[in-house]
């Protein structure tokens, strides 16, 4: 007979968990005690539970393993909520264990009691309270299975304190069988053949690849398929890296900040072969004009993603990798030379650039990374920093770009990079943030210092919440409502004087980094980019924050205004 906590630790080991992201508290103290001195599992202590779950998320996205979170009840649990929704949207496998007040106290409004299962029910793949000690092993086994199979996602186990302490069986089940959960493991060959036949006759076919290709690890097969057929490829932000982004067949991201070539290709194509995408509104633009000339083939492991936003002609419910392998077996390359020539011309004629801004630009910083680092992992925050990064960053494969694509969670970048560095100790990891998002989880600098991580944090500082400011500039007559981060109460109201009388920025990011015992450097000129990265490279046992002061009103271009079709993009905004 062993305690519930001991069974939990045993289960974690059996699941191959070697890193766990935890923050202790009253109702989780027994679990932390069981982990004390445990050699096979390293417990990481981030400084806030929201950052904790983003770190587990970054670890999971960058390694493909399940990220594990352990927090206490009440506020510990509720601080996970944003991270659970983030992971759920982007199909990230997490198992979150929350301490809970003893069963007998549940419902009594006990200290630090919340109904966390009720709170997260609609934003996770599965959430469950353990109500009997004898169910504990099975529930943990099922949680890991559900998190990592099918369309992956976050699972929450709420573990009351008395179950943690109760003695019971030490058996951890090997098998798992859940009657309400049978992930699709096959491929419907008939549908594959239909898709292949449609493709064979196409004059203007196009591959649209989403995050599902990267999650299933179909990259190599997908590259083979693209090369065998010669069909051009576009991706969503989550799908970037599905084939190497420098590949001649790759036209760029689609969507409201996608490339001209990608957006026009999707508007002009006659067969859109889409894999592992949800057709989210950020990529479709005006939905009635999306790929309006095309027959649409859609492969997705989640049947609920098929024909949800876009009505599909040939649906295929399957894991992307399995389906792509089958397509490779049957596919006959179509004759499409004029089409390829056309899209290549668009690609050459309308590259994405920030050339109109003199001096230091995010483009130059990201391109520096492209030229000097071999397959780095880059976690972004949300906003302009994310859009610039996903536009300019070159990727070799999957698990390199970590970004909150679905929920768009500010504060994601730094902790996600931290988790990724822990999972990939020998790789270069960057966090790219804006000055707004960096302050949403800045406390994780302490964690990165404590763990001696050689993270490089890139802050694009324009003193604004830049993405919203860009919208305000373009569509709200420059009424910069609540987006200026240099604002002081003594500023004149409705100020548009962006250069002259602004108070100094707070915080001083360089001093702030130093106060955490990290390194910091401010960069104001283009010429200093190499020096800055060299400075960061000197510190192999501590994080370095590089603050790049950029044009306050630099915009992300091109852009499809809200409600417009993809080919009605503003090239220069």
């Amino acid at each position, binding site marked *: 007979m062993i305690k519930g906590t001991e069974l939990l630790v045993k289960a974690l080991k059996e699941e191959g968990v070697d890193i766990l992201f935890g923050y202790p508290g009253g109702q989780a103290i027994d679990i932390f005690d069981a982990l004390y001195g445990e050699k096979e599992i390293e417990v990481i202590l981030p400084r806030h539970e929201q950052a904790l779950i983003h770190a587990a998320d970054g670890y999971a996205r960058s390694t493909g393993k399940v990220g594990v979170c352990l927090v206490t009840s009440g506020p510990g649990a509720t601080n996970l909520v944003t991270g659970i929704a983030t992971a759920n949207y982007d199909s990230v496998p997490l198992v979150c264990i929350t301490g809970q007040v003893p069963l007998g106290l549940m419902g009594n409004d006990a200290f630090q009691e919340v109904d966390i299962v*009720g709170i997260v029910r609609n934003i996770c793949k599965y959430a469950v309270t353990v109500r009997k000690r004898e169910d504990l092993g099975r529930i943990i086994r099922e949680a890991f299975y559900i998190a990592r199979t099918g369309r992956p996602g976050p699972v929450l186990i709420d573990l009351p304190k008395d179950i943690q302490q109760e003695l019971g069986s030490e058996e951890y089940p090997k098998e798992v069988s859940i009657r*309400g959960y049978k992930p699709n493991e096959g491929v419907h060959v008939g549908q594959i053949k239909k898709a292949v036949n449609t493709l064979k006759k196409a004059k203007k076919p196009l591959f649209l690849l989403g995050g599902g290709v990267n999650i299933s690890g179909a990259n190599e097969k997908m590259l083979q398929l693209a090369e065998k057929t010669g069909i051009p490829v576009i991706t969503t932000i989550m799908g970037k890296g599905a084939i190497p982004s420098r590949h001649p067949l790759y036209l760029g991201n689609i969507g409201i900040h996608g490339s001209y070539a990608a957006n026009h290709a999707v508007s002009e194509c006659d067969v859109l072969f889409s894999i592992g995408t949800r057709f989210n509104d950020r990529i479709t633009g005006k939905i009635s004009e999306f790929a309006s000339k095309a027959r649409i083939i859609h492969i997705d492991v989640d049947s*609920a993603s098929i024909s949800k936003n876009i009505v599909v002609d040939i649906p295929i419910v399957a894991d992307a990798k399995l389906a792509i392998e089958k397509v490779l077996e049957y596919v006959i390359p179509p004759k499409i030379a004029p089409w390829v020539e056309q899209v290549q011309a668009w690609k050459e004629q309308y590259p994405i650039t920030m050339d109109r801004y003199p001096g230091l630009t995010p483009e130059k910083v990201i391109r520096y990374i492209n030229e000097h680092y071999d397959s780095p992992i880059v976690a972004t925050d949300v906003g302009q920093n994310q859009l610039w990064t996903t536009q300019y960053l070159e990727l070799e494969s999957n698990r390199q770009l970590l970004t909150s694509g679905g929920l768009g969670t500010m504060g994601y970048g730094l902790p996600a990079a931290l988790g990724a560095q822990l999972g990939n100790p020998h790789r270069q990891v960057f966090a790219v943030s804006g000055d707004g998002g960096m302050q949403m989880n800045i406390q994780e600098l302490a964690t990165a210092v404590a763990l001696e991580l050689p993270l490089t944090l890139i802050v694009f500082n324009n003193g604004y919440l830049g993405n919203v400011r860009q919208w305000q500039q373009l569509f709200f007559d420059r009424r910069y409502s609540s987006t200026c981060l240099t604002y002081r109460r003594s500023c004149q109201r409705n100020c548009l004087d962006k250069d002259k009388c602004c108070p100094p920025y707070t915080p001083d990011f360089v001093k702030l980094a130093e106060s955490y015992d990290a390194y910091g450097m401010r960069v104001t000129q283009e010429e200093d980019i190499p020096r800055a990265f060299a400075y960061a490279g000197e510190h192999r046992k501590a994080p370095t924050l590089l603050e790049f002061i950029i044009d306050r009103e630099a915009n992300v271009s091109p852009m499809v205004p809200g409600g417009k079709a993809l080919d009605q993009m503003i090239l220069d905004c």
Partner: protein
Amino acid sequence: METKKRWISMYVENQIGVLAKVSGLLSGKNYNLDTLTVGETEDSTVSRMTIGLTMDDVTFEQVIKQLNRCVEVIKVVDFTDVPIHKRELLFIKVSSCHEKDKEEIFRIAQTFDLKIIDYDKNTVLIQCIKTEQGVNEMIALFRRSFVNRIEVVRGGSVAIEAISVSER
């Protein structure tokens, strides 16, 4: 797109929170629910839900997919166009009844196969078991005949596959 009435019969885990999961999913996705009934089945680990919704084909397909995605949902069956038996329980209490009203109520009960299950000097309680449509019609009838004097409680439909009857 054209909306129509749909019926779903669903097997779910008989656990705390499953009803909240299903109703929360439907409301969270902005799907409008007409009725939902739930109860334990012959297997005490399984509950069965009967759900009535009014929506178009595309939305309904999404609802089925979303429900199927829930780990707690064991099986979803579309009852919209299959032979089923479907009944709803209705109680109507009519108050301030004179003798004449009572006579009228007893006549209605006889005509429409309703059951008087309780009464006193001024009040009559009627039990009605019919399809949803039948229940609607009975409520309309009583509302017309006994203006502002009726109290209505209805249970939502339960449904089961027919054996040899094809009439719905």
